[in-house]
């Protein structure tokens, strides 16, 4: 009886293994006149709608050139992740090793970006170009020679905001209400570098992600704080503003780059009183006078009637990164030989304008240097929208500081940087 036991189960294993040997598909063979581009975004999980929008924008970028560069056809293989680093990594391995793609465009979220950065370092003759992920360290610390990012990241996005609050609003003490994880840390750092240097003081009030009751935080806002800097996204921001409005709060609200998103703008309720005129900073705004933006938004609406009213930040970032890849491919006539040496060189030196009309070029870590906009929430004929009203040009990843000096500040965290009142 014991004899049967193992022999049968091992027989199962043997048959299974043999079956896979027999059916294992041959790896895709690359043709000379085809450039294979793989992409990863989140079609599952919490950012699924953003991921869908990202693919809309990529489709636009490919259709503009009719999937052809220098006589070579572009083949696009789409993959989906669920915003987890492990899943993004498994998909990237599949794209590179099984589908034999030349270039990957993606991923969407921060931890995924860092995972793919590490993976790209182990590759030869392959290039990964970011999709929409915005963790600073992806390019700032331990960058990979095969990883390029043409969108700006969380710290850069708050450029100009600190000076605006201190100089234009004349507020010298703010209460900071921020979610307690990496992305807000980066945004807070960008804001505070400027604001503290200008002479402002910050009282920090952290809340865990997915907080629904901000009662204790509202109670802790100091009497003499002249404004609230709200670095929260989605339902957290909505919960805070609703509760703050209900308790009769009337301080001006300064937002982070993801605070004034569609969740907040389209929701109805007491928070709307505080929303109008809310100032924030980021790489895009719904309303922007630049003709490139107007044209791009029109093209987007026409091509995707069932898409968003205005393209999302993920669509914008994926489009910008895809555009950079296509421009560099054009530059080298689609030549990916010699371990993509010529292509990567062209990619590192490509300089162009993103749909916001902002100039984009890369620094020596292959991270975008571009313009950041100050935005304000306006009532546009009954619909709340964000409108660009100021520009900080050529924002670098070290926020205009010397890079050594910036790195010496350390990674952003709860306690870094710090400029409490009375210090």
């Amino acid at each position, binding site marked *: 009886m014991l004899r049967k*036991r193992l022999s049968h189960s*091992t027989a*199962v294993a*043997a048959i299974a293994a043999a079956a896979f*040997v027999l059916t294992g598909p041959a790896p895709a063979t690359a043709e000379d006149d085809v450039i294979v581009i793989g992409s990863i975004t989140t079609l599952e999980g919490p950012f699924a709608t953003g991921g869908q929008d990202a693919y809309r924008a990529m489709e636009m970028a490919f259709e503009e050139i009719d999937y052809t560069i220098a006589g070579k056809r572009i083949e696009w293989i789409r*993959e989906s992740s*669920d915003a*987890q680093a492990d899943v993004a*990594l498994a998909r990237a391995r599949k794209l590179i090793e099984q589908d034999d793609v030349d270039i990957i465009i993606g991923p969407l979220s921060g931890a995924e970006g860092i*995972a793919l950065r590490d993976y790209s370092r182990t590759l030869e003759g392959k290039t990964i170009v970011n999709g929409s992920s915005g963790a600073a360290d992806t390019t700032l610390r331990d960058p990979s020679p095969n990883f390029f990012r043409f969108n700006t990241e969380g710290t850069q996005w708050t450029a100009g905001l600190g000076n605006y609050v201190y100089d234009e609003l004349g507020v010298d003490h703010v209460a900071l209400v921020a979610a307690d994880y990496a992305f807000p840390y980066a945004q807070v750092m960008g804001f505070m570098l400027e604001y503290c240097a200008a002479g402002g003081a910050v009282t920090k009030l952290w809340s865990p992600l997915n907080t629904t009751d901000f009662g204790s935080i509202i109670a802790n806002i100091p009497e003499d704080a002249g404004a609230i800097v709200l670095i929260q996204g989605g339902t957290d921001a909505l919960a805070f503003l609703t509760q703050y409005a209900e308790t009769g709060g009337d301080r001006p609200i300064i937002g982070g780059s993801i605070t004034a998103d569609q969740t907040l703008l389209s929701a109805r309720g007491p928070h709307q009183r505080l929303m109008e005129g809310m100032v924030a900073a980021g790489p895009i705004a719904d309303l922007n006078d630049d003709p490139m933006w107007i044209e791009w938004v029109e093209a987007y609406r026409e091509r995707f009637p069932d898409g968003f009213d205005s393209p999302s930040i993920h669509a914008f970032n994926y489009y910008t990164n895809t555009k950079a890849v296509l421009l560099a491919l054009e530059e080298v006539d689609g030549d990916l030989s010699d371990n993509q040496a010529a292509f990567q060189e062209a990619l590192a030196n490509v300089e162009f304008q993103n749909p916001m009309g902002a100039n984009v070029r890369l620094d020596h870590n292959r991270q975008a240097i571009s313009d950041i906009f100050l935005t304000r929430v306006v009532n546009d004929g009954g619909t709340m929208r964000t409108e660009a009203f100021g520009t900080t040009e050529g924002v670098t990843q070290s926020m205009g500081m010397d890079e050594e000096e910036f790195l010496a500040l350390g990674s952003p965290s709860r306690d870094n940087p710090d400029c409490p009142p009375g210090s």
Partner: protein
Amino acid sequence: MPMLSRLQWAISLAVLALLLALPFLLPSFWTGNIMGRAIVYGIVAMSLTFLASYGGFISLAQTMIAGIAGYTVAVLAPTAIPLGNHWLPYWALIPLAVAAATFAGAVVGLIAVRTREIYLLMITLALAVGFSLFAQSNIDWFNGYEGIRNILGPDIFGYPFRNLYVFYYSSLLVATALYFLVLYVVKTPFGLVLQGIRDNPRRVSAIGFNVGVHRVASFALAGFIAGWGGVLITFYNIGITPGSIGIWATVNVLVMAVIGGLGHPIGAFIGALVYTLFDTFAATIYDRDRFNTLIGLVFLVIVLVSPDGLLGLFRRLTGWRTGRSVATETMEEKT
């Protein structure tokens, strides 16, 4: 009682030889990212199968325990980004991580020692979810949501662990050793008592065995197995994030164990292989926006057609018997 008969040894060695030869038969993607991935996740699934098959304990904490080993490696690894204040060389780190997982397994066993079935499930689920949320919100040690990256693993005979063959053969070696360890343990007096506890804990207790101690020891052994899986998974993923040990990762390991069949340790590896294949290729054979539907349907069909997984299906189709029924008979013969 011998662990395996001569014929069983022969078949086992034949399968092992086939697995050893696979890297030369398959494209490299299949070696590293289908077979390799199935083996490392299969190890964690096997720790669950071991508990379920021989102890009757369905524990959802195995992914968490693998995560404890993974985080131990990550926090103390010399190549980690961000690098911790203290680090150890890999040769010291790996045993330490496995020891930590073994200890964590014993602690989980101790916490859950008086519970069975749905209550055991709930307690272990709560521990698993709690730990992943803790890892997500702890910045000082675990670096929160972004986790710890660049865990490259040791060099073996001068070759980096990232090398496809080094990774595959190391994983295969560990998996094989653990697989035979499980087969050995269930034939020892300890293993037989464990199966007695599964079938009737009161009777075992009446004979004079300490049921609680045996349960805790079995959880510790399962922790040891899961710990090895956790270490290898962390090297495979070049790092660890709270997502690696969250609720979805926990469910995935359960799915692997169930579709493979909980009756025998080999089921874990078969389940992991089937899962990996579908996870990788579902998007290619079905609509990319909706491929999870296909994965869900396949698993649903497997569980509907055969509640005891692919192993059970195979057994029914061929009239052969494996695993549990035989083990039970062994017990009956003894008593």
